[in-house]
């Protein structure tokens, strides 16, 4: 049994990201002026400096940009090995999420794998993990 995942402190900027999974949605910050997504979520668009920004759901699919198979138990009882990956999010060019690739053997993960979000709930937080699209 893994230890609990570290819990993000929710605030006005990050709440939609960490709780969107309750409705099954992966929500990224989106700019109404230049129509771009950006991450981490902030109260201003880093592409055009507009304040007309709001969380918006994306499809929830993406591509493994790079990854590492982690063998070191950084916390007591952490189950290893597991995969940490950087996923490029479909429909949101330039946005990457650090995440875990789950529900497959660690040796099955490779760059360019197509993946889909799957949420893991822990209290108020819905952690966006990803699994391979077979």
């Amino acid at each position, binding site marked *: 049994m*893994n230890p609990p*995942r*570290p*819990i*993000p*402190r929710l*605030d006005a900027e*990050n709440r939609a990201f960490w709780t969107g999974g309750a409705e099954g949605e992966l929500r990224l910050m989106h700019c109404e002026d230049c129509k771009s997504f950006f*991450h*981490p979520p902030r109260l201003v668009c880093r592409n055009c400096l507009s304040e007309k920004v709001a969380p918006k759901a994306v499809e929830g699919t993406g591509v493994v*940009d*790079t*990854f*590492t*198979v*982690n*063998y*070191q138990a*950084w*916390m007591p009882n*952490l189950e290893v090995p*597991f995969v*940490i*990956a*950087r996923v490029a999010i479909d429909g949101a060019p*330039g*946005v*990457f*999420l*650090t*995440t*875990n690739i789950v529900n497959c053997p660690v040796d099955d993960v*490779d*760059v360019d794998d197509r993946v889909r979000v799957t949420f893991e709930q822990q209290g108020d*937080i819905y*952690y966006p*993990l990803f699994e391979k699209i077979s």
Partner: protein
Amino acid sequence: MNTRDAFVSGVGQSEVGMRLTRAPLLLTLDAVKEALDDAGLGIDQIDGVSTYPGKAHGYLGFSPIGADELIDALGIRATWYAGGGEITSQLGAVAAAAMAVRLGQARHVICFRTVYEAAAMSRPEEFPPIRREKVEGYTQWTAPFFAISAACWTAQYAMRHVKRYGMTREQLAQIALTGRANAALNPRALVQKPLTMDEYMSSRMITSPFCLHDCDRFTDASTVIIVSAGDALDEVKATPIRIAAMAGAVDRLSWDQAEWMACYATGPELWKRTDYKPKDVDTAQLYDGFSFQTVAWLESLGFCEVGEGGRFIEGGTRIARDGELPLNTFGGQIGGGRLHGFGFAHEAVVQLRKQGGARQIPGDPKLAVAASGGGPLATALLLARD
């Protein structure tokens, strides 16, 4: 050389070890005294202090001594000082000092980095470990996925080189093998035993492609670099080393949104600011908190093309002490200890002055590059003996 340039006038270092009992302020004092003796300066001639990342309240092992604390403790009368983590990595503190002396804000600046992580972990009652209820800032984008160590973040950049450019573990091993071979000739190095390829290949994995030997380890030490103004060199007795160029970069302080580590923007910028070329460099001292960071620096600084770093170091002869580009001759952080950036500038000065003893590179080295930082922060210094 002109009087408007900034120079390294002295370097010093404390004992380097793990779980030292000597207090971090006194380790810093040891390094300060050695650097003052080296430069031929007295503490009363010091009028500036610069450090990275400032005193880390709540995580004292990482940085137990602040600049203002050192100023007060050693009775320094400063006209300029700085200390903080919001700068382009560890050697950014040296670059800031160079700017200060060039602009006449100070004449002789003590730049220091004191680390005490091994001792702090062994004495938790004195140095309580961080206990966070919740994660925030950029940590919230990695820690919730158990990507807790910079090893995991850096490994993903390394894996991209494995997949995109065909970098192999045998190639990457040369950073650790070279560092450990050099460390064996450095009396102050943390690890004195050389490493074999068999030991490297059979060691346990930490986070692929990194095994145990690709990672530096917690160290207790203090390193001091004294930066002096060009018009104050008449007070200095040591051979001054000119800071011929410096560059740094930060795009965004994030280990996952930036496609390339900040070194890739820093290297080309360094060469824009000087007439020297990569081929003029006699030795490179490049950050190796994790082995791949050195590979990235070699590419960034134009010693080879992007993607060619693995092949550049393959076999290790090119980066050996008698090779065309002697690398991390004090052992790097993997062999020499996690001096956290400052060790690279210290060693560049030692080599340019031909004071390396058993590890001294052959010939008449006149130009060295020292670089610190991995991930979103990077600083490079070009150091010249005129």
